[in-house]
């Protein structure tokens, strides 16, 4: 699929959103016990003072990350493509603010949504929904949304894939990925320094998703 063409991007996002609208609550059933994600969320929370503004990119159901960050006393905003997931998130984490938005459109295409600057950003398994060509662009936007020296915690699945269409919980989604060295390179090229890195083998509790190597990068925006 051609990327960079606005119509195609919209189509791409619509497909992804539709899949997650359909998946809904089953996502948390298939991916329980997100140990690595909780540890990584903890990195961010520990790096920030209480009351700091945090953006969760691709917040999904809001569980566990938005919940965790809210409980850590942070001011949490979540964005996601899927209205269905957002509905679940609003229910689970009423303390947070949620918007239906595409990270690649924030600040450039969608000027109606004025989110302001954040002290921290998390993106757990959301950027992998983008074609590879768009990932540096998305990282650049994340960088723009962060205050200087702001914290960014990224979760990805280790894979060498670009916009690969795969069955996922009874639907089809398109995913991309990097091997860990390449991922670090991409993140650093986007203006971040990687402070900490970890990986967790993870087995979803479903036939519909294979086991995966989860990568977590704790980064800081370079000036």
């Amino acid at each position: 699929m051609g990327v960079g063409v606005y119509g195609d991007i919209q189509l791409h996002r619509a497909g992804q959103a539709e899949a997650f609208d359909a998946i809904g609550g089953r996502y948390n059933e298939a991916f329980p016990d997100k140990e690595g994600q909780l540890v990584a969320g903890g990195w961010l929370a520990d790096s920030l003072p209480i009351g700091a503004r945090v953006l969760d990119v691709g917040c999904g159901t809001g569980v566990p990350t938005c919940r965790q960050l809210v409980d850590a006393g942070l001011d949490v905003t979540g964005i996601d493509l899927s209205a269905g997931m957002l509905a679940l998130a609003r229910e689970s984490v009423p303390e947070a603010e949620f918007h239906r938005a595409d990270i690649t459109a924030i600040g450039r295409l969608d000027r109606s949504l004025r989110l302001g600057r954040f002290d921290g950003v998390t993106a757990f398994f959301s950027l992998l929904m983008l074609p590879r060509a768009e990932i540096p662009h998305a990282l650049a936007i994340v960088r723009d949304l962060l205050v200087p020296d702001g914290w960014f915690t990224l979760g990805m699945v280790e894979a060498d894939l670009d916009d690969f269409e795969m069955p996922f919980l009874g639907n089809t989604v398109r995913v991309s990925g990097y091997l860990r060295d390449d991922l670090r390179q991409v993140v650093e090229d986007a203006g971040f320094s990687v402070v900490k890195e970890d990986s967790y083998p993870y087995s979803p509790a479903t036939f519909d998703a294979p086991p995966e190597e989860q990568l977590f990068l704790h980064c800081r925006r370079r000036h």
Partner: protein
Amino acid sequence: MSTERTTQQAAAASATAAGAARPVPAPPVAPVAPVAEAAVPDPRSGFAAGTAAAASTKRKSGRDRNRGQDRSQERGQGRDRDRKAAARVAAASADSSLPSTPPTGRDRGRDRPTAHPLAEDESSGAQALKALGAPVPGGVGGVGGVGAVVGGMGGRKGRGLPNPAAAPALSESERLRYVGAATRRIARGIDLDEILLGLCRSVVPAFADAILVYLRDPLPVGDERPSGAFVLRLRRTDRAPDESASEHPETGALLPVVPSTEGAYGAAADHIDVPMDGALAEVLRGVRPLFSEAPQATAALYELVGGCPDPTSPAANGLILPTGRRAILAPLRGRRRVIGAAVLLRRPERPAFESEDLLVAAQLATHTALGVDKAAMYDREASTADSLQRAMLPDSLPQPTGVRLASRYLPAAESARVGGDWYDAIPLPGSRVALVVGDVMGHSMTSAAIMGQLRTTVQTLAGLDLAPQEVLYHLDEQAQRLGQDRMATCIYAVYDPIAHRVTIANAGHPPPVLLHANGLAEVLRVPPGAPIGVGGVPFEAVELPAPAGATLLLYTDGLVESRTRDVWGGIEMLRERLHAASQIVSPPPLEPLCDEVLDILGPGDRDDDIALLAARFDGIAPRDVAYWFLEPRAQTAGRARRLVRQALRRWDLEPLTEATELLVSEIVTNAVRYAERPITLRLLRTDVLRCEVGDDAPTLPRMRHAQPQDEGGRGLYLVSRMAQRWGATRLSTGKVVWFEMGIPGGLHR
């Protein structure tokens, strides 16, 4: 003469003759029908009453060590004892709980004088006979009405009846009734054991005191020609109880052949090689039963029972057999050839056989031999069916990682009912395992054959790694292609030890039961589905959690359904049994659990065959698994090597790194050449290191012999040389090539 009358009269006789020696019981309640449906005449009545009397007679004469007693002397001994015995018979017949063995009467018999003058015996015998209400010897012409039917059987019946009490049995009608009942009992048998048992029970004690039945070994089946030497094997013996032997051990020798039914055959040989020129072979060729009168017949008897034709030879071990008319050697001739022989013996104190008894023996022998012939054929068919069934079942179950398996197969209680139940466990890529239990409808050889077809089909479909509902769908289609009436029920489940999930699809089979680690036994709610062979019905699969420590039980309806229980009652029993089993140890050990489960069937409960497959979920921890998608590119092999290195470092398996990297790189290089979609690399650490490379090209790689100048073609050769095991599996979506490396130090966990 009716049985009832005999016993009543006997009771009356007892009252007068024996006085108050024993209270006379009430007249017998139920008359015994002359030819009862229950087959063999009750030894307490009619024909067998003579035996009872004879048995008591014997106790007396048993003291006399003279084996060559005059027949009349023996017969004379039991005059009034016979009456008492008859009285006891009457008493016994009033008490239906008594066993059918003749009453003993030994307490009184012991005090009796040993010998009686012949004349007295004769006369008192006649008196006793009168007292019993039996026709007086010599005056029984009227009873011979049926004599014509049996061709002169009654010819000499009136004269010199050996034992007064036995006299009534010797009328033609009695004989006919006996033969009718006995042959019915013999012919009713469906297998060899039943037929021989029928023969023995018919003969002893009603017709003889002991019987030995020999059959050819091996037994020829159908029209096949026996091969090898003519060997006879003692297959069954029976004898009337012999109190005198235990009571007076010194007189036991008087009854030389007292084969017990428990295998102590006395001097009787177990295996007899029959020389074709010997007396025995000659007698057997003659087919007709013989008394041991002619020297040849006696020699044949000794050859058969003692293993040596000459009784004086040391080889005969001092065996002494009743001879003359106390022994009948009856060849057993089947449809085409002699298949064995029966020896019927009477103890010395019992009246000898009469010549008409040879006709009776011939009848019994004919029915037995034909029955055995048919049983052998039936048995062959049953055993063919049984071996077919067993050959269709797995020899052994695989031992996949992350799950323990146990299975049972029990044929139906009736041996010939082959069931067509099956079970199977099929390892799938990604350490998953397919668990299958099925049940072909019907019970026949055909069911077993259909089962074999369906099991093979399921194996093939499972190998393609189709989803459970797809497997059943294609199985259904295939069953219809195979022919009409390929009806079966089937459960197909796939356990994924990494995801801790199980997916189950059902085709009309009873639901699986999941025994949780906490002892809760849960009947899984699985859509029932239509049976295989119905056609055109979609199947549904359910995905359920399969937590570690839980046990999945798949079974066929034979376990839960019987004449006395419906399926749901049976399932409830199974559930309770599983729950109870896990109250002691949880989770209960798997093999004993299977036995425990089978115990819910009572001894007579097994109407149907049973297949049972139990899977204990152990699971595989995420830390032991690594999985990646990789775009097929030039650099992919290098990337795969990097990932292998990374994983083996995490698992402290660095010594394997070099070899594993090399092999993975070879397989990935090959995969990348044909793959269009991303390939997958999976590493699994258990007691071995397993590597799987999946791609979307269906062509399986073949090992080639690369020429020295060839650039490639050495990949699989290397794999086969360096890996512990390797293989390639075609999937519906492509293929998986896998290999396993031994882990130094073996089990690490």
